[in-house]
């Protein structure tokens, strides 16, 4: 047995990895709870990969069969309805936890040097997660998903010079058609997974390279040097968190399965009361608020510019707040609170 182990180790160098796992520890302080958010995202991501592959066994990305194949999954395939429901709920949970993860890092200022690149790859992972949500929303091909995709892919059109080009790239033509379904499908199941795994690889490498960030306040307390071994102590607690989250997920999936409307009709008017997924609601409400002309400019263009600038500010936050890690940054903290409140307020408003 030992011989086999030594043979494998000579070839793969597993011992170094397991030594790293044994040595790694997690700082223990009043904010330790936020460290669980990262691994919770991985849990939901794993569920998405498995259920996504399962759904793709039966899904047909064509204008004729897309809706019918989802209906078949929901009604004929054994346990199909719950697999789709878990995929849909796990997507929601994943994006929710990604947002919580990002907020915890913004509030504890863990993005400061030397972790700027970790933050930026994290923001890209959020963008990729939203892109997953957006492309996945079209695939069932019902009224709602058609209208949401028409709006979403039309937004770039207001950008001067390249806008129409971007819209046509996203749609695979002038309009949302069957070509859009195949395009969204391959992006959803191939392009985005490749991208998210590549970025996630860099993100996780950077997390290991720089170690876990300890918030200022926590570091100054009496508990300064406390740490929890990653294996087995942290993993044990993490497993408990995973089991609870999995339980919540399956419960939600069973009792609140997503609906499926009749197949989308390209000629039908948009259904009343369309709303995007909850994580796009604040953008949806912002677009509604902007009048058609602002200071002689196209209102839509102004809205797109404001939201684009907002994304850039979030992405480049570590470069804006580049104070030494010991100092507090009040302005940034209030800005983060203000953005957070704005997003929550507009989301609630759009639901009223």
């Amino acid at each position, binding site marked *: 047995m030992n011989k086999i182990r030594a043979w494998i180790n000579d070839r793969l160098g597993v011992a170094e990895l397991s030594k790293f796992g044994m040595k790694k520890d997690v700082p223990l302080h009043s904010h330790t709870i936020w460290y669980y958010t990262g691994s919770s995202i991985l849990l939901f991501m794993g569920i998405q990969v498995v259920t996504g592959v399962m759904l793709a066994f039966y899904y047909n990305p064509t204008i004729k069969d897309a809706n019918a194949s989802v209906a078949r999954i929901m009604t004929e395939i054994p346990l199909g309805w719950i697999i789709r429901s878990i995929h849909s709920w796990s997507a929601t949970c994943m994006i929710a936890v990604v947002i919580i993860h990002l907020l915890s890092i913004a509030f504890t200022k863990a993005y400061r040097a030397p972790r700027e690149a970790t933050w930026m790859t994290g923001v890209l992972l959020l963008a990729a997660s939203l892109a997953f949500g957006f492309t996945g929303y079209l695939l069932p091909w019902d009224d709602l998903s058609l209208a949401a995709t*028409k709006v979403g892919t*039309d937004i770039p059109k207001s950008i001067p010079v390249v806008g129409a080009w971007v819209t046509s790239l996203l749609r695979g033509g002038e309009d949302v058609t069957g070509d859009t379904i195949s395009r969204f499908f391959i992006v959803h199941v191939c392009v985005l997974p490749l991208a998210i795994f590549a970025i996630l690889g860099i993100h996780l490498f950077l997390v290991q390279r720089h170690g876990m960030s300890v918030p200022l306040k926590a570091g100054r307390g009496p508990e300064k040097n406390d740490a929890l071994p990653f294996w087995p102590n942290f993993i044990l607690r993490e497993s408990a968190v995973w089991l609870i989250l999995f339980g919540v997920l399956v419960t939600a999936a069973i009792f609140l399965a997503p609906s499926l409307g009749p197949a989308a009709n390209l*000629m039908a008017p948009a259904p009343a009361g369309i709303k995007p997924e909850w994580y796009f609601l604040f953008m949806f409400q912002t677009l509604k608020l902007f009048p058609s002309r602002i200071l002689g400019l196209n209102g839509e263009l102004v809205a797109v510019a404001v939201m684009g600038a907002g994304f850039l500010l979030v992405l480049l936050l570590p470069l804006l707040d580049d104070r030494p890690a010991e100092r507090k940054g009040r302005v940034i903290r209030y800005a983060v609170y203000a953005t957070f409140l704005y997003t929550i307020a507009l989301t609630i408003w759009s639901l009223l």
Partner: protein
Amino acid sequence: MKLKYSLFSRREFLNGLLGGGLLAFFATLMGPVVRFVFPPYKEPDEVKLPAADYSGLQPHEAKGFAWGAKPGILKKAGDGSLVAFVAVCSHLDCNVSYLPNDRKFYCACHQGWYDENGKNIAGPPPSPLRRLAVTVEGDSLVIKKQG
């Protein structure tokens, strides 16, 4: 010949030549890739509809037709003439509906309103609905791009 001063060494120059050459090679491959991902699109020059299908329209009533992949709406105006619109909102591309009782076009996505002539009157739409020209040729209605 050996230069006395140089901005970069011979090694750096050769590295740049190789790296830049590879980069340029892959960049040229992007041309066909970009061309491939944009399918050709041509808006219909005209659409012919059987006039009989639309003969029952009362003034201020409307009926849909297909303008390529977009919906169109054919409406009988108050004076009995026929007008046609591309039934797509000028705001964010949602399909609009015609509400005969209100004599207005309505976009449900972001609550945009147009009057019966397709003029944007409320909500976010920045411009009127696109109009199409309608002519009667024998027993068919011919819808064409305007202007």
